[in-house]
C-alpha cells in the first residue's frame, strides 16, 4: 500500500470513530451513569428524612440479608427480606412457566392459521399490551374480588356458597402477572414458529413420529430460541414487578420492587434501597447466566 493510501485509510478510520463518539458517550452515560449513582448511594449513610449523608457505610448492604436485634445487638437473618426474595423468585418462575404453558399453544395456533388470519390474531394478543398497566390490573381486581365477576358467576351457578378470597393472595399476584406478561411470551415463540418449515413436521409424521413426538422432537427444539427469549422477557420484568403485586397483593404479598420502593419512601433508607436494587440486578444476572448455560448445554447434548 502506498503512503498516501495508508494515510487515507487512517483518516477514514479516525473520522468513523469521531462520528460514533456522541452515540458512544450517550450510551455510556445512560447505561452506567444511573448504575454508578445507585452503587455509590448503597455505600452511604441514610439521612434521617430520606436522602443520604456523605459518609461511608456498609449498613445498607448489611441490612439486605441481616438485621441487628434492637435490644440484644444479636445478628439474625432478615426473615422478612428473605421471604420477599423467595416470593419474588418463585412468583417470577411460576409466571414464566404459566405464560409458557398458555403461550406456546397460543403461538402455535396462530402460526398455523392461514397467513391473512395471523395478523388479526396477533393484534388481539397485542391490544391488551397497549392498554395502560394500571387499568389492566384494576380490571383483574374487578374480576377476582369478593363481589367480583368470577365469584358472582360461581355463586349464581351454585358451585360455591360463600365468595372465595382471591384478591390479596399470591394467586392474585400470579394471575395478574401471567396475564400482563403473556404477550411477551407469545411474541417471540410466534416469531420462531412462523419461520418453522412445516414440511419438517410432515417429514416427522412420515418417519413414524406421533403428534406428541413431532411436538417434542421437531417443533419444540426448533422453537426453542423463541421459548428462551420469551422466558427471559417474562422472568426479568416479573422479578422487579411493582404495580401488580401492589394492587393485587394489597401490600401483603410484597415483591422485591415493592420492598425497594418502601426503602426510598416510608422506610427512608436509601442506601438499603440502593443495595436491594443491585441485589435484584445480581439475581437477574445469575438467573440468566444459569438459564442460558442450561439451555445451551442441552442443545449441545442433543446435537
Amino acid at each position, binding site marked *: 500500500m502506498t503512503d498516501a493510501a495508508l494515510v487515507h485509510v487512517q483518516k477514514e478510520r479516525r473520522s468513523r470513530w469521531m462520528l460514533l463518539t456522541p452515540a458512544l458517550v450517550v450510551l455510556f452515560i445512560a447505561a452506567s451513569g444511573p448504575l454508578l449513582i445507585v452503587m455509590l448511594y448503597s455505600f452511604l449513610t441514610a439521612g434521617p428524612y430520606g436522602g443520604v449523608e456523605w459518609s461511608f457505610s456498609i449498613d445498607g448492604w448489611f441490612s439486605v440479608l441481616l438485621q441487628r436485634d434492637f435490644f440484644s445487638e444479636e445478628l439474625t437473618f432478615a426473615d422478612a427480606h428473605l421471604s420477599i426474595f423467595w416470593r419474588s423468585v418463585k412468583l417470577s418462575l411460576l409466571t414464566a412457566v404459566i405464560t409458557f404453558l398458555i403461550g406456546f399453544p397460543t403461538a402455535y395456533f396462530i402460526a398455523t392459521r392461514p397467513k391473512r388470519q395471523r395478523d388479526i390474531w396477533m393484534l388481539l394478543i397485542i391490544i391488551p399490551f397497549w392498554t395502560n398497566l394500571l387499568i389492566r390490573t384494576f380490571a383483574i381486581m374487578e374480576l377476582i374480588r369478593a363481589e367480583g365477576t368470577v365469584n358472582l358467576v360461581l355463586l349464581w351457578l351454585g358451585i360455591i356458597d360463600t365468595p372465595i378470597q382471591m384478591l390479596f393472595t399470591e394467586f392474585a399476584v400470579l394471575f395478574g402477572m401471567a396475564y400482563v406478561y403473556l404477550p411477551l411470551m407469545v411474541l417471540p415463540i410466534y416469531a420462531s414458529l412462523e419461520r418453522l*418449515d412445516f414440511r419438517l413436521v410432515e417429514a416427522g*409424521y*412420515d*418417519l*413414524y413420529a406421533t403428534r406428541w413426538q413431532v411436538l417434542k422432537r421437531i417443533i419444540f427444539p426448533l422453537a426453542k430460541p423463541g421459548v428462551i427469549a420469551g422466558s427471559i422477557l417474562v422472568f426479568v420484568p416479573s422479578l422487579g414487578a411493582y404495580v401488580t403485586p401492589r394492587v393485587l397483593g394489597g401490600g401483603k404479598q410484597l415483591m422485591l420492587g415493592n420492598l425497594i420502593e418502601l426503602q426510598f419512601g416510608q422506610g427512608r433508607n436509601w442506601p438499603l434501597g440502593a443495595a436491594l436494587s443491585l441485589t435484584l440486578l445480581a439475581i437477574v444476572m445469575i438467573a440468566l447466566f444459569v438459564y442460558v448455560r442450561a439451555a445451551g448445554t442441552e442443545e449441545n447434548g442433543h*446435537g
Partner: protein
Amino acid sequence: MIEVIGVTKVFPGPDMDFTALGGVSLTVQDNEFFTLLGPSGCGKTTLLRVIAGFEYPTSGSVLLDGKDLLAQPPYRRPVNTVFQSYALFPHMSVAENIAFGLEMLNKPKAEIRKTVADMLDLVRMTPMADRKTSEISGGQQQRVALARALAPRPKVLLLDEPLSALDYKLRKDMQLELKRLQAETGITFIFVTHDQEEALTMSDRIAVMNAGTVRQIGSPREIYDQPSERFVADFIGETNFITADLVGVEGDGSGLVRVRLAGGVETHVQAPSSDLASAMSNGPVTLAIRPEHAILVDEPQGLLKGALENVVYFGTDTHFHVALDDGGLFVLRQQNQPGQRSDMSVGDRVGLSLGRGVGQILRD
C-alpha cells in the same frame, strides 16, 4: 401391492378450484420400480402426498395389499418419502436424521447404530455423520434424505426427484445403487423424475402424467416405441408427427394397419394397441415416427420425399432435417460409423424409407 383407484384431488381456491389430480388409477406391484413422469405441475408430488398421507383425496381410494391406506394417519403407514425439498431436520446431525425413523419405531439401540452406519456407508456420507445438515451441500443433503427414508425399511418408498441435485457421475452411481437396493430389499419404489433417460433406464414401468391425469402406463419399451397419444410421444424422446389416411386393417392380430402417406404410397404401421386395431375406422390419422426409425435413402426409393435442409453432427450420431414435399419437417437420426463418409449436402433431394410396422398411429 399399491392400488390407486380413481383418486381426485381438488384444491379449493379463492376464485376457482384447482383440480390437481383428476381421477388417477394405477396399480404398483410388489418390488416394482414404478416411475411417474410428466411435466412440472402435472400432479406427481400431489399423488405421492396422497399415498404418504399428507393430502386426503377429494374422492377415490388407495389400497396397500388390499387394505385401505387412507384410514391410517401418515405415521402408521409403512411408507417413507424422500422429499423434493429434502426436509432434513436442521437441529439434528446427519446421523441423527437417519436414526430418527428407527427411534420412532422403538428399535433397539444397537440395531439403530448398525443400520445408521450401513446407510451412511451406502450414500457415502460416513465422514460427515456428525455434521449439521446445514453444513453439507445440496447433493449431500439429498443423499441424507434418501438414507433417512430407507433406514426404516418401509414397504413402499416414495422418491420425489431424489437425484436431481447430483452431478452426472454421482447420479449414475446412485441410480445403480438404487436399483441394487431395490432388488435386495424388496421395497416397492414409486419414483418421480423429470429426467426421461433416468425414467427409461431405471423403471420396470412408467406412468406418463399430464395435467392431473395418467396418459399411459407401460414398460419403458412400450412407452417409447408405442406411445398411445401425441402428448406421450412428444414428451418422451423426439418424435416426428405426420398425417396419413387409414385405408385398411390387417385381420391377422399383428396390430398392424395399412395407411396411405402424403405421396400416395401405402405402408404398414402400428395401431395404438393390438385390440384396438380391428375397431378402427378409415380416415385421417396422425403417425408418430421416431427419428432413428426412418432411414435416409435416394429419392426414388423413399416413401416420403423432400429436400435436405440441414445436417447436424452430434458426435455419436448425425441429425438430418428434411423439408417434406407436403410441408412439415422430418428429423432423422443416423448413427455415425467409422470410415463412413456423408456425400449428402444441404439442398439435395432425398427419400425416407420406413420398415414394415415402423410408425405408430396415435389415439386422438
